[in-house]
C-alpha cells in the first residue's frame, strides 16, 4: 500500500505520521507543499502542525497551497484522504468536509488522552475494527467543531460523524468533551466517506511505551481495509 504525507512548512507531525505508516506496512512518501503532483497513492495524509503558522484561521492558507489542488482532485475522484489535527483544519478549509474548527472552549491548548467512540463502521477507515471505543491522544488549540444546524442535520442524516468524544465505556456526554465540539464530534467524513478529518493523533499511540497502543489497532486495520 502506498501512502503520501504532505509536508507544509510548519507541519510538525509529518515525521511521526511517516514513522507510523511505515511501521504498519505502508510504503510512504513525503510530499512537499510546493509540489504540484501527488505521487500514486492509496492514502494521502495531511499531518498535524501549524502549516503556514496559522496566524490567519488554522489551515486556511494551507488549503490554498499548490499541492492541495491535487489532493482535492484526488479526494473528489474517490481517493482516501485523512487529515489529522491541523490536517482536519485544512480539510474543513478546503470544504472537503463540512463545518469549522473554533478555538477550544476554555481557550487553552489541550494535550491529553481522550476516549472516542466509533460512530460508523461502514467505511474503509473503521470497517472490521473490533473496538467500539479507542483511547486516542489530542494536542490542539482549535479543535472545537462547529457547524450550522442545517449542516448538522445533513451530517447526521448521511451518518458522516466518524468519532465522538466519550468515556472509556463509550458514553457520549458533555463532561467528556474536551474542547466544546458540537455533539462531541472528534472526527467527520465527507459524504462518500473517503475523506476523514479528525482531531486525535493515532500516530502518537503506536507502542506501549507511548501514550497507548490504540493507534496501532487503527493503522493495522486501515492497511488491511485498503488491501
Amino acid at each position, binding site marked *: 500500500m502506498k501512502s503520501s504525507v504532505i509536508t507544509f512548512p510548519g507541519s510538525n507531525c509529518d515525521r511521526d505520521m511517516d514513522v507510523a505508516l511505515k511501521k504498519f506496512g505502508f510504503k510512504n512518501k513525503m510530499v512537499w507543499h510546493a509540489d504540484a503532483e501527488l505521487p500514486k497513492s492509496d492514502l494521502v495524509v495531511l499531518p498535524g502542525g501549524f502549516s503556514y503558522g496559522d496566524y490567519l484561521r488554522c489551515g486556511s492558507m494551507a488549503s490554498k497551497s499548490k499541492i492541495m489542488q491535487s489532493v482535492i482532485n484526488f479526494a473528489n475522484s474517490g481517493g482516501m484522504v485523512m487529515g489529522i489535527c491541523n490536517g482536519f483544519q485544512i480539510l474543513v478549509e478546503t470544504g472537503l468536509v463540512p463545518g469549522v474548527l473554533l478555538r477550544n472552549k476554555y481557550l487553552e491548548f489541550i494535550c491529553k488522552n481522550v476516549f472516542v467512540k466509533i460512530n460508523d463502521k461502514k467505511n474503509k477507515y473503521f470497517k472490521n475494527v473490533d473496538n467500539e471505543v479507542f483511547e486516542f*491522544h489530542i494536542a490542539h488549540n482549535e479543535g472545537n467543531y462547529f457547524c450550522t444546524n442545517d449542516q448538522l442535520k445533513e451530517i447526521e442524516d448521511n451518518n458522516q460523524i466518524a468519532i465522538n468524544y466519550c468515556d472509556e465505556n463509550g458514553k457520549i456526554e458533555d463532561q467528556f468533551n474536551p474542547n466544546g465540539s458540537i455533539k462531541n464530534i472528534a472526527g467527520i467524513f465527507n459524504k462518500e466517506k473517503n475523506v476523514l478529518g479528525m482531531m486525535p493523533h493515532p500516530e502518537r499511540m503506536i507502542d506501549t511505551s507511548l501514550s497507548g497502543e490504540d493507534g496501532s489497532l487503527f493503522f493495522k486495520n486501515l492497511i488491511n481495509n485498503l488491501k
Partner: protein
Amino acid sequence: MIVNEQVAVDHGLKKDEYAKICELLKRTPNITELGIFSAMWNEHCSYKSSRLHLKKLPTKGKKVIQGPGENAGVIDIEDNDAIVFKIESHNHPSFIEPYQGAATGVGGIMRDVFTMGARPIANLNSIHFGSPQHKKTKNLLRGVVHGIGGYGNCMGVPTIAGQTSFDSSYNGNILVNAMTLGLVKKDKIFYSKAAGLNKPVIYVGSKTGRDGIHGASMASASFDEKIEEKKPTVQVGDPFTEKLLLEACLELMAGDSIIAIQDMGAAGLTSSSIEMASKGNLGIEINLNKVPCREAKMTPYEIMLSESQERMLIVLENGKEEQAKKIFDKWNLDFAVIGKTTKSKKIELYFDEEKVADIPVNTLVENSPMYDRKWKKAKLPKKNKIKKEDIKHLKIIDVLKKILANPNVCSKEWIWQQYDHTVMGDTIQKPGGDAGVVRVHGTDKAIAASVDSSAVYCWAHPLTGGKQVVCESFRNLISVGAKPIAITNCLNFGSPENEENMGEFVECVQGIGEASDYLKFPVVSGNVSFYNQTKEEGIKPTPAIGGVGLIKDYKNMITLDFKEVDNLVLVIGKTEGHIDQSLFARTILDEKNGPPPEVNLFNEKNNGETLLKLIDNNLIKSAHDVSLGGIITAVAKMCIKGKKGININKPKYLINEIEYLFAEDQGRYVIEINKKDFKKVADILNKNAVHFDELGTIIENEVYINDKTKVTIDELSTSNKSWLINYMSK
C-alpha cells in the same frame, strides 16, 4: 547625537566604565559604538559580576564534549550521538509582557541548541511566581504558560518536564527559565568560532525590526515604578518563522559549507558578530545597508541593537552562497551577504557608505569589566526545637491533605496539559514524574531530564542550598533509572551590588560546584540572571539546575506510580527528622527560621548509585525521590498516580511519627519491590552500606498509617489536583 557621560549612564553604563571605553578607544565613541559597548558590557552579556566565581565550577568530564562558552553544552551519549543542552532565563521580559516574554525565552533557547546543529527533542522550564494572593500572579501565570505553549507547540518540540513554584519574593519579579535538549551526531556539531579571511558573513531568518532594542540592558537592571514604559524592550516571537529557520539551518548543516554559526539572541547582531570574531581572533566588516529590515529608516544604532527574534549569523565557505541561498529561499526566509571576515581584529560597520563604527573586538570582550564584588558570608541558622505540644493536636491525614494541596506541591496538570508533550512520538515519561524522558529516535536509548530549584533552602543557607539543588537533580534522574551525566544552571539572583545578594550568589555557586564535583555531574552550560528585584526587594536566591541523564535501554525506565498490591515499599536513606525549612515547618507550624536539611554528598552518591544497581538488576517496580513534604508526601503521590493504597507501619525510630513522615532529610528515595526480591534487595543495600527502612505494603485504594488512621486515594487525589484548577478558574 553627542555622546557624553550622561548618555553613557542612560545606557546603563557606570561612569568609570564610560571612562574606560574612552581610554580603550583613545577617543569618544559615537552613539552606535556606545550602544554596542553598552550591549556587550551589561551584566547579561558580559557576566562582569559573576565570571570570577563561575570559573570555579567543574566543567570537565569524560562525557563532556563542550563545556560553557559556546551556545550550549554538549555531552556524549555514545554511538556517535551527542546531546546539546542549555537553560536560560527570560525573567525581566516575562514580567513586563508574560506571553511574549516567555515565548521568546523558549524560542531563544531552542535557537541556542539548533545553532550547534542539533534538532531540539525536548523542552523544559522552571517558572516561579509571586504569592497566589498577589493581584498580578494569576495573569502572569496564565500568560507565561500560554507563551511557553504557544512557542514550543508550534515548533513541534515536546515540553516534557518543568517546575512551578509560588513565593511572595517573586511578587515583583517572576522567573521564567527555559531549557532545551537537542540531538546531534558527534561529528556534526557546529561552533561559533569564525575562521579564515574574506569569508562571507551571512544574515538569515526574520527581518530586523525595532523590537527588543536594549533588551539585554533592561535585563541587567532592577525594576521600578516605570516598568510599563519598558514594554517596547520585549521582543515579539514568531514560532512559525523559527520552525522554518530550524529546518533551513539543519538542511544547510547537512552539507559542509558552514564555518561558524551563531544565533542572534541578547544584543542581536552586535553580540553574534562580535562573539564570532572574538572566538576566531578575526575582524568582521558589515555593511548595514544590506541587513534585511522590517521597518523603514532604521539607523545603524537600531539595527545593531535590535533583538528581533528568529535570526542567525553564519560565516560561510567562499563560493557556497548560491547553494545556501537556495535552501533559505525554499523555506521563504531572508538571506543576505552582509559582510566578510577580515584580519583587522576590529568590528567595522558601514552605513550609507560611511564608516559608522570601528571598534577593536578585544575591547568589547577581553577588556570588558570584571568585578570582584563585595559579598557577605551567610551564617548557618540555629536549629529550632519542635515543641511536643505544637504538634500533639495535629492529625497526620489533615496535614497531608494540606501539603498535597499546597501550591508548591499540588499537581501542575493544568499547566502541562497546555504544552504539547507527546509530539515527535518519543516521549516515554510525561510531565508529572521525577524527570521527563524521551527516546533517542530509532534507538533503544532514552534521555532523562529534570529541572529543579529550592529557593527556600538557598535563602536559609546558600551554600547548603546550592549543594541540595544539584543533589535533587541527581536524584530525579536516578529515580527514572537514568545515569546522571551533566547539568546546566540558570542562576537567578537579586542585585550583585548588594552584599547579601552577592553573598547568596557566591555561596550558592560554591555549593553547586562542590556537589557537581563530588557527584561527577559537571556544569556544561548556563546563564546568570541578576537584578531580579524591584526597588530594594530582591527574590530569594533561585539557582535552577537542569540535569540530563542517559537510560541505555528505555524499557528499563522507572516511573513513580505504585504498580502492584502486596509489593513492599522501602525508604532508602536515613531519616533524621529534619523539620526546619520543610514545607511542614513553614506551612503547618508557620516557622520560617532554621537551617535547611544538611547535604551529605557521600550518602547522596552512594544511595543514588546503589539504587541504580537495583534498577539494573530489575529489582525496582517504582521509585520516587523524597523532597518537599517528606516521605508521606512522596508516598501519597505514588499512590495517587498508581491508584493504589499502602499500609504504613512507621519503623522503630527515636523520632516521632510526624517528624518521620514530614522531615525533609536529603538523599532519600521511596522504592517499590516485589516481596520475593526482598532478600536480594536488602543484600545489595547492606553490602553498599545504604540505610533503608521497611515502610509498608501496597494495598488497594487506601492509605493506612499504623493501623489507626486512614484515607482513601480519591480524597488525596482531589486535594492534590484541585488547587491549581480552582485557582485558575476563579
